[in-house]
């Protein structure tokens, strides 16, 4: 590990100044610091200053999670544990609480933050290994494409096949979430515009400009929403596939649905085809429900070792829908 300064600026403006000023050439923002420490240990980042952000409070921030009228607000510094246990979210946007509660381990959730979860880097084992100069690190090859790609993407046109690691982002994508920013030309960005696919820029996953800092997130209530993840290991494992679903129900009939998948693409993967197919489906008609969920794999192009995700994804979607409706799922 290389020496670096640790900064604790007093507010967002001072943070912005550190990020854009000339004093440091490789500044790095830190939320909980989990991913930062991983990168430092793996020799991937050599920052000259690590800027702690957990103490920064945006104007109007009170509790880590709050609700004002029909707007739910999650502060950038809210821990994953706080999000998972939030009464507001459990009642008004359970998919968000459940998605975050399913991630990582209790220890990680106790320090990991909302903004950190959204902006963490991918877990691809070639990206994480300093010996592999992959596309993301400025190299010329995606080693996963002809290598070990069991945990990689089945969607997207490449040329990089990471899956986006955030559990929170797909849940936010179906709750009209907006990411609020400080320090740039814009005050906010819809969550669906926060990320880009690798063909639109391979070195980063997000669309933030240098110096832009996430201050908080707002979202709309989605009381009938659910989350389901399929994991190899039930303790501290990255999902093989997961889905978030928000429904409007008419009795047991789906009036409208919004579904977003995770762990299958380089970005949170919206499934408009499934949304459309679910419309009018009676939740008690499992055959119809399964048929609608089967649309989830439309357009998927698996790699050599991850075709199993084609079987899994519709299952995750179906179970997220059932969870949203408060129905029992098999496991």
């Amino acid at each position: 590990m290389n020496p670096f300064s640790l900064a604790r600026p007093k507010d967002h403006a001072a943070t912005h100044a550190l990020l854009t000023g000339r004093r440091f050439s490789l500044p790095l923002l830190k939320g909980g610091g989990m991913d930062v420490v991983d990168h430092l240990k793996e020799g991937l980042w050599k920052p000259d200053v690590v800027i702690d952000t957990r103490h920064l409070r945006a104007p109007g921030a009170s509790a880590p999670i709050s609700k004002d009228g029909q707007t739910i607000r999650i502060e950038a510094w809210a821990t994953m544990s706080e999000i998972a246990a939030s009464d507001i979210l459990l009642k008004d946007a359970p998919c968000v609480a459940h998605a975050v509660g399913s991630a990582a381990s209790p220890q990680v959730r106790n320090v990991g933050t909302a903004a950190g979860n959204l902006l963490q880097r991918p877990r691809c084992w070639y990206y994480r290994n300093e010996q592999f100069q992959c596309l993301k690190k400025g190299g010329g090859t995606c080693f996963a494409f002809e290598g070990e790609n069991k945990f990689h993407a089945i969607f997207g046109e490449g040329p990089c096949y990471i899956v986006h690691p955030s559990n929170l982002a797909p849940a936010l994508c179906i709750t009209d979430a907006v990411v609020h920013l400080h320090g740039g030309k814009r005050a906010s960005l819809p969550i669906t515009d926060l990320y880009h696919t690798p063909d639109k820029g391979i070195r980063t996953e997000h669309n933030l400009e240098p110096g832009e800092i996430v201050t908080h997130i707002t979202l709309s209530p989605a009381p009938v929403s659910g989350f389901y993840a399929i994991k190899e290991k039930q303790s501290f494992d990255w999902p093989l596939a997961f889905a978030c679903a928000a429904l409007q129900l008419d009795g047991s009939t789906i009036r409208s649905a919004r579904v977003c998948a995770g762990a299958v693409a380089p970005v949170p993967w919206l499934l408009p085809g499934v949304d459309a197919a679910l419309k009018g489906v009676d939740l008690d008609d499992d055959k119809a429900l399964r048929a609608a969920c089967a649309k989830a794999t439309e357009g998927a192009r698996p790699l050599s070792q991850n075709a199993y995700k084609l079987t899994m994804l519709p299952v995750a979607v179906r179970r997220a829908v059932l969870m949203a409706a408060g129905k029992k799922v098999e496991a």
Partner: protein
Amino acid sequence: MRRDDIPYSMPTTNRPRNAGSAISDDASRLDAVAKVTGQAIYSRDRYLPNSLFAGFIFCPYGKAKLESHASEAAKKIPGVVEVEISGREGQYHGHTVGHVLAESPEALRRGLAAVACKWVREPVRTKIRDGELAEPSPNAKTSDILAKADHVLEAEYETQVQTHCCLEPHGATIDHKGESATCYISTQGTFAATDGLSDAIGLPRSKYEVICEYIGGGFGSKLNGAGKEGVLAARLSAGHNRPVYLFRTREEDQTDTGNRPSGLARVKIGFTKDGTILGGLVQKFGGVGVGRGGGGMSFPSGRYNLGDIQSDHDDVRFNGGAPRPFRAPGHPQGAFCEELMLDEIATKAGVDPLALRLNLENSGARKEMLELGAEIVGWKNRAKTGSQAGVIRRGFGIGSAAWGSGQGRTDCEVVINRDGSIEARTGTQDIGTGQRTTMAIMTAEAIGVPLAFVGVRIGSSNLPVGPGSGGSVTTPSTAPVMAAAAARAREQLLTTIANLNSADASEFDVKGGEILRAGKPFMTWAQACAKIGGEQIVGRAKQGEGERGKGHSDGVQFVDLRVDTDTGVVYVDRVIAVQSCGRVICRKTAESQIIGGVIQGLSYALFENQVLDRNAGSMLNANMESYKILGPNDMPHIEPVLWTKGATGVRSLGEPPVVPTAGAVACAVFNAIGTPVRSIPLTPDKVLAALAGGGA
């Protein structure tokens, strides 16, 4: 505290299922508090004043030539003391080619980075199937058996590479003081570790001491003498006359400190319509990486009557780290193949797998254990293989193990001091089984005092010689000798008291920490010890004394699980582990040993897998995040059942509980879904492939 009151064969009361007895109480591990509070000092915790820090330079690829390096530049990094390149070629990820020595861990990391090795990669082989595998060649007798059989099962069973994942990585801190040296090594053999050190240190054996008070994980890979780490640290410490600290990084520990090798078994087994197995061909391959041997699989195990088996084995080399002993080397992989094969035969023949095993089982004890385990797990609730519909399907499976009981060289001594304190001593180490606890219990019991009276000293080559912890011999070696030494110390004390009272020693006894004369309280322990002439009494005994454990340690395990057929995820609900180990010294640590074995077996069956990049040969999950190990949410209910019927002496318990588990899990998955998954780990992708028809 009232162990003496518990008759030998009294069943334990709060666990009526325990099919035998625990002679001793439920003593807690003596060092439990020290371990969970951080007071226990592991070798890796030994940061000595004025220490230097050493680390290896290694190849990050499966096969590569070292084209260039900047070791001259690295030497100029502040704090770097020495840089040595000793090799030019790497044959596997982790292959060491030199070292850096520095004033601090930070300077060491900077120095290692500054060496900036440029490697030129070469094509690699990363698995057994990359090698040229011999075609099966049944001899005339085997061909005859197969021709005459009603059915022939043809199958290929595959197992993965499992790494030891010791929480405390391999390494040593060596303090060379000129005339003598102190060597803190994370080792499973304090005495074995002295081998090879003399040359490296340049001192006669009597002038140095190997110390390992606690070890953070010893599953076989720390049985290699002083290890590469100890030898280099010793050499550097001798050369620089300063302590040298050398512990592996996690990446190195995952690649260069051994593993359980992968295996491939091709079987052609002939059997009759009623499930009688006639014999056949078992062709095995062990994936030994760059190793020269060690890829053997215990298959057939000899536990079942499988008729005439022609068994062939080849080790296959590729660009991976060499195997080292790993908790029952060759056995879990063999048991996986054998147990699943038996279930496949049973299903084909329409025979219940339990009935098939009762028929084939060579041991009367294991037959009884099978019957008990079946009753506890509720075998009668098992649905016929392939008969279930529904998304969630339940499965039951069986595995078994047998383990001979050896002894290693052991001297023990028990000291009774004038202040009444007692110390039990032998130089062996505790790899986590509860060595201090069993020694203290044996000593307290033999003398007749409460457990709290006894202190224990272990983990040093300056103490009386003790066994290396390999082959599950540590407790069987030390327990009887410890008891004999304690009995001798007791005899000396009672003789002292008798002489002072001009009586015969046979009139005296010790019970519950009190001295009795003719069965009546005579004096307290402290009063008695105050009469010791000189400072202390020492009772000594050596290997061969005491009651030696005879025969096998047997085990059978039953797994009850669910398979989610939509996702392929396997949820293990219960494992019943019936296990014998001769006499049970301490029920809690014995059960803990069984539970630990089951956990490691489940982790092997379901998750663990060393992933080598097929093109570069690098281990992609050389950490403890993407190298997946079972966690708390994956824990089933594990029920250890100690079987002490006919127990004499103390037998092995370390390795056998890890053997049956993977086979039992595989059988249970087969029972649930109706298609065998012939490859571990049993990950969801493989289960889904089997369900889709691609698995068998």
